[in-house]
């Protein structure tokens, strides 16, 4: 049994790590882009960002003053048991969200959409979001927090089979240009793309592709991996860099996730995970051990399975 105390204290630490520490895969990629960027304004922005990550870690303060919208992804090994069950777990994650918002401090971003009431703790109706997944075997649970920036860089479009790859390219460019001008998306970013599913499923796939996969990771389907690479190069060829200045650093990496969809459609969503790509994961074991990491390892063969039965099951 995994104790609620362990869940709450780990969740608190995850909140801090996500807000303060830039994940190493993203940092390495940004250093590479900085070395290759030639335009002086774009260069200045990238160098300033690298300094900013250092300042954040040294001082223990959030990288960005807009600390995003904290959310949780919980994955259960199939043999895991949690003290207090799902209700206990959700309460622990909500407590950790409120506590960390005060202690770090994070910006209390979450308000009621109409009354604009602010509880000053990032907790409210439907906030933080908590999403679930399962894995065969394992007595552990994985807890991931993502604090994605909230306003720009995300869009959805109903495409059709006749739109084809040319239509995908087009919507990709439309979105990069729309949110890239003046740097509203805070690029260079990890771009996540959802293809298929239904409108809501497509949004979820794209968001997870952006926030739960690391730079350099490829989709196991070689055709999709090829499209990921192609779109990344296309994005970096539009002549735009950070803040929408002239440059070539736009897309740190491009990740695509697909889901089976209606036979007449080809839904597409796009999500930009910003200059503060905040994600942190921990694996919790029943004996009280925790292991922290920056790769959520969300997309496993099981998550992407396409058959009726899970064929690898024992």
């Amino acid at each position, binding site marked *: 049994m995994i104790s609620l105390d362990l869940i709450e204290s780990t969740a608190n630490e995850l909140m801090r790590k996500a807000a303060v520490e830039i994940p190493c895969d993203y940092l390495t990629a940004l250093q590479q882009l900085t070395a290759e960027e030639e335009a002086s304004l774009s260069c200045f922005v990238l160098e300033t960002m690298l300094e900013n990550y250092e300042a954040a870690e040294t001082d223990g303060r*959030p990288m960005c003053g807009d600390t995003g919208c904290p959310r949780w992804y919980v994955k259960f090994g199939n043999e895991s048991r949690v003290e207090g069950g799902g209700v206990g777990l959700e309460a622990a994650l909500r407590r950790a969200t409120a506590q960390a918002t005060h202690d770090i401090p994070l910006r209390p971003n979450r308000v009621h959409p109409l009354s604009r009431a602010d509880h000053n703790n990032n907790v409210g109706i439907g906030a933080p979001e908590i999403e679930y997944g399962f894995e065969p075997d394992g007595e552990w649970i994985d807890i991931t927090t993502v604090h994605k920036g909230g306003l720009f860089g995300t869009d959805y479009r109903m495409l059709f089979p006749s739109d084809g790859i040319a239509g995908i390219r087009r919507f990709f460019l439309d979105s990069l240009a729309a949110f890239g001008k003046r740097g509203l998306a805070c690029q260079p970013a990890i771009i996540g793309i959802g293809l298929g599913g239904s409108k809501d499923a497509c949004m979820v796939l794209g968001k997870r592709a952006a926030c739960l996969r690391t730079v350099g990771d490829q989709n196991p389907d070689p055709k999709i991996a090829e499209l990921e690479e192609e779109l990344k190069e296309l994005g970096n060829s539009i002549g735009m860099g950070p803040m929408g200045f002239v440059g070539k650093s736009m897309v740190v990496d491009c990740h695509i996730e697909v889901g089976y969809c209606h036979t007449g459609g080809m839904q597409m969503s796009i999500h930009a995970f910003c200059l503060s790509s905040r994600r942190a994961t921990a694996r919790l074991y029943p004996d009280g051990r925790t292991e922290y990491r920056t790769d959520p390892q969300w997309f496993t063969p099981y998550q992407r399975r396409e058959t009726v039965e899970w064929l690898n099951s024992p």
Partner: protein
Amino acid sequence: MAKQSLRKIRLSTNPTEDELRALKLGDVVYLHGSVYTAREGVYIRVVEDKHPLPLELPKESAANFHCSPAASINDDGSINMGAVTATASFRFSKWLDDWFKVSGAKLILGKGGMTSNDYRRDFVPNGAIYLTTVGYGTGALLGRGVQRVRDVYWSDDLGLAQAIWLIDVEEFGPFIVESDFEGNSLFERENARVAETLTRAYEGTRPAVLKRFGETDDRTDELI
């Protein structure tokens, strides 16, 4: 990597007209003095609901930051402030002319700037310019420039995110000069350059078979 060739300037948060006139698009600015946050919550309360200002402006500061800090107030009234980052400014342009008149602001600090139309209509007549934050996620660097939080106003009515935070700053930056004294915009200059390469990247794409109402085919268009 290109060698940095940008001019760096130290500027007071109550700058003189000459100091503002001397700034060029793309200059890098570090501020000293005091800045205050004010965004839609404050603008609505002051400009639309005609509430009197809770502090003396521009005497305390002529630098309005479009920002909600990552901060919390402890039970004993003390304040923690870690990182500060701007929020996108284009949404606030409709209140600015009135706001300049009430507040005497000379510097608007924010994210992403506004259009040169806004600058010519609202900024130039009021002798103000726009400085954009960098990145934009440079909250930790900006946080280092915060010396102390002098006061918080209206946090009970508006919440921490929309309250007025008056903060003393030193080496507060970097910012980039986005609009100059004539109302030119750095972003618009850069957009015009990007538009050419962007047009080439669109070759080999196709507009969606199902259109959206009112879409643009002009690569120089912006959506703000």
